[in-house]
């Protein structure tokens, strides 16, 4: 009996190389050899915060109801990086940041990051954690109605939603639009991207949220992860193009190779 199952050699090699790629990429990230592109969504975020200052109304930053233990943890981490960035902008420009929380696991980290950001700007005394980072609920519709209620009362001028979102995405996007808030939305949950794309002023599609998070955090681990993924995507593109061209002339070598 063969040690390796037939037809699964390519996936296994690909899986093992992920390990290698992650190591190399993170080390390269630490040495500063990798640059993540600044995506346009970040400019939109700055605009949202700036607008809130001008209008003298709060800016919301919602990171979703994900936790560190579910499979959307990386999206939550990206959301937290953005929250840290938005908190820094808010502290510097003097915007009233409101970041409601849904997860008991994530909340302490969120508080810490916002505190850090205010501290860096020397505005720690302006931060009121209980008011600005209230805990609402970890249950979907309670969380949604909590946010909608707060939005109606506080009338924010801007809303930034980056993280994992479920059916509540539609409710949020619609509510904040109704009260006239400028919105930036982003999630890597494919099912919800269309709502953000349709209803927000700017939408970060899928993995753009990871790139944005890595860019603003500058953390080698996040940057390296993105680089490792990029290498795989480049391979995917190369194989797709070469394979499609070859199969157009009747040579099916790439697909056969991948089936090993």
């Amino acid at each position: 009996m063969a040690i390796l199952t037939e037809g699964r050699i390519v996936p296994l090699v690909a899986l093992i190389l992920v390990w290698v790629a992650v190591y190399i990429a993170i080390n390269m990230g630490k040495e500063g050899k990798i640059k993540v592109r600044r995506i346009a969504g970040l400019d939109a975020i700055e605009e949202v915060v700036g607008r809130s200052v001008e209008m003298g109304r709060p800016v919301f930053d919602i990171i979703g109801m994900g936790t560190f233990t579910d499979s959307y943890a990386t999206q939550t981490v990206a959301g937290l990086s953005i929250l840290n960035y938005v908190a820094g902008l808010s502290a510097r420009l003097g915007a009233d940041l409101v970041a409601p929380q849904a997860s008991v696991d994530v909340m302490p980290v969120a508080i810490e990051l916002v505190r850090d950001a205010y501290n860096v700007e020397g505005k720690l005394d302006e931060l009121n954690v209980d008011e600005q980072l209230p805990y609402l609920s970890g249950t979907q519709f309670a969380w949604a109605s909590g946010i909608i209620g707060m939005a109606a009362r506080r009338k924010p001028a801007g809303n930034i939603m980056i993280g994992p979102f479920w059916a509540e995405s539609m409710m949020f996007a619609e509510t904040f639009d109704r009260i006239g808030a400028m919105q930036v939305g982003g999630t890597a949950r494919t099912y919800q991207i269309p709502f953000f794309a349709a209803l927000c002023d700017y939408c970060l599609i899928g993995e753009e949220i990871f790139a944005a998070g890595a860019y603003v955090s500058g953390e080698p681990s996040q940057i390296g992860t993105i680089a490792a993924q990029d290498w795989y995507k480049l391979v995917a593109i190369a194989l797709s193009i070469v394979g499609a061209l070859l199969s157009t002339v009747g040579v099916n070598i790439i697909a056969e190779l991948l089936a090993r």
Partner: protein
Amino acid sequence: MVTMDPQIWLAAFFTIAATSYAFRDNVVFKFAEYTFIGVAAAHQIVMGVKNIRDYGWTKIMEGQIIYVVVFVLGIMLYARFHREYYWLYRFPIAFLVGNGVGISIRAAIHSDFIVQISETAKTPLITGDALGTINALITFVGAVTAIVHFIFTQEKLHEGAIGYIPKIGRWLMLLAFGASFGNTVMSRFGMYQGRVVFLLRDWLQII
């Protein structure tokens, strides 16, 4: 005639209460919502206990004493609520995470990565008829440019004339998202219709 069945009256009340939220947040909705949260969590416990009985307890009864370890691990999960011994919960959660991650990525690299590339690679770009060729080209361009759009560490791919490649990817994705959005409209109305039929047929009995 309106029904006299208390179950249907209760269900009708909660249907209307849950709908009312779409119009405005109100106390009746809030009552329904908190009820929902409580009942949902209770259902989880009931199903959890049944699951433990069916797949764990029966094994111990059959003499597989090793399952006592699983029960100990299971109880350790609840250490997370303890101030001092919370770290005990890491042992069972580590087991669950290792299993969950392993079982999904071992196949994801195949299903989501290799099979998808292979599908693009084995589809000829030119087929017998014009429509087939156009479709093949759009699919190919969509797949490749969408991936290019999601490359973040290669600045050159987003500059100058080449910069149009990821842009095309973004445009094609937006077209696809539109299709998804349009389909979702159908999904939601289809779902609400069931509730309306319930109210009209079972509760008010007018259809």
